[in-house]
């Protein structure tokens, strides 16, 4: 159980839109192990997707359908709203007005914070890790990893995610 081993906490992954898009080339018929891993994480309650991410996944391709078909891993926008307000006020650059339908970033960070809070009083405290391929290279702009760093939340890309789970394909 690699997920339990690293810090003594369960590793829970909040998976951003960009990662699901990165998964498009990983066809389930070919990359069976990849999708077994993801399915297993979802079954264990260690994979979460904010509702706003689910809404951004609209290409009709396999990863989008996979997420749509698993409402038990979704975290509703209403449940994350207040936390997302805090995140957005602290990192207003996560609100990119040039993306009229790109709305998920503050909710991704909020979901990670919320999950840590919810589990902190239980016998299964967790480390919530955000999985995203977003980066911020442009001056005056921020991306999800910047918001995560401000809250002490780790963020990794797809391959970092696989590595954390000790998997190679």
């Amino acid at each position: 159980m690699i997920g339990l081993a690293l810090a003594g906490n369960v590793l829970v992954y909040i998976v951003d839109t960009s990662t699901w898009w990165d998964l498009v080339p990983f066809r389930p018929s070919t990359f069976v192990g990849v999708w077994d891993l993801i399915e297993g994480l979802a079954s264990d309650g260690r994979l979460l997707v904010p509702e706003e991410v689910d809404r951004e996944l609209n290409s009709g391709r396999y990863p989008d359908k996979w997420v749509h078909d698993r409402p038990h891993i979704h975290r509703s926008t209403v449940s994350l709203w207040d936390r997302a307000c805090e995140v957005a006020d602290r990192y207003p650059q996560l609100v990119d007005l040039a993306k009229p339908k790109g709305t998920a970033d503050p909710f991704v960070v909020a979901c990670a914070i919320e999950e840590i809070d919810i589990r902190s009083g239980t016998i299964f405290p967790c480390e919530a890790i955000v999985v995203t391929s977003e980066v911020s290279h442009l001056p005056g702009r921020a991306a999800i990893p910047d918001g995560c760093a401000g809250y002490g939340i780790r963020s990794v890309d797809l391959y970092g995610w696989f590595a954390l789970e000790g998997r190679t394909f």
Partner: protein
Amino acid sequence: MHPPLTALRELASLYGVPLSALLLSHPPRKSLPTVDRRTYSGVDVPETTMPLAKALHRAADLQEVARAVIEHADGPRFEAMVEDIEADQLATDQRRAFNISVAQQRTWRDDNMALRAWRTAIERRGVFVLQVSMPKTEVRAFSLSEHPPFIVLNRSDHVRARVFSLLHEFCHVLLGSAGICLPSTSRRAMQATEPERYCNVFAGAFLVPSDALRADADAQRIGAAAAVPDDAPLERIGRRFHVSRGVVWFRLYQVGLVSQAIFTAKWDDWADWFPAVESGGGPTTSADIVMRDYGAGLASLLMAAKERGVLTSTDVAQYLVVPQAALPSVEAAAAQRLAG
């Protein structure tokens, strides 16, 4: 107590902002652009309606992204023109710089092809051209002169009017005096105050060069008749140059083929020229929609930034409001337009 989420989604859609903008306790800080408005004849100060405000903000937001991308790549700045020069001379110089002959212009099979050709030529110069649907009674076009310059055309307008608006706004960009315009070819508009009059003269002279007009058989017949002509020859000339009959008539007057008296007599016959907007035949693929709404210039800039790792596929798809799966076809379409 929060408003229902569905109401918040509707509000975000109404204002053209992401839902996440409503998370903020204060409105986002942003500098509103200085703009030049081109509106319809008889409208001195266009009302800033919701569609116009949304279009202004959309253009300003995308301009900010384009600026950041260009500066990150240390790309070139578009330089406004500084010399003091007559509008028709500027048009001649610019026409030469575009390297598009009148013979080529006449080979374009229709007005849409003309609009696409002029737009692409302007985009190659480092000016971004968007098209947004705005109510027809308001604004025909506007431009943002800050680096990098943006021109926004009203997609609801007739295509020949958009061709004229495009060149009118390009002139504003050259002058560094961009704004929201009422680019009418009415007599009142063509005799408007500076810099509107200057830009109107520029657009007319650019699209209908003096030498080419004087060499046109229909134009020569109109000149020789020394009488008020029918609309038919004006329409034929307009079709050849892909401009409205109003532009043709004003150019005939400007180059001296018709007198002031004849010019006035004919013009007074006309109300402003508002042909019905073409229906149907719109783009069918995501790539075509991106080319229509955002242009090859912006699409190409963002795709190049993605290749350099400055933007992600998610970023580009969300800026262009297109499914990520469509990005390869968007990239190919932009490259084809800018190369061809």
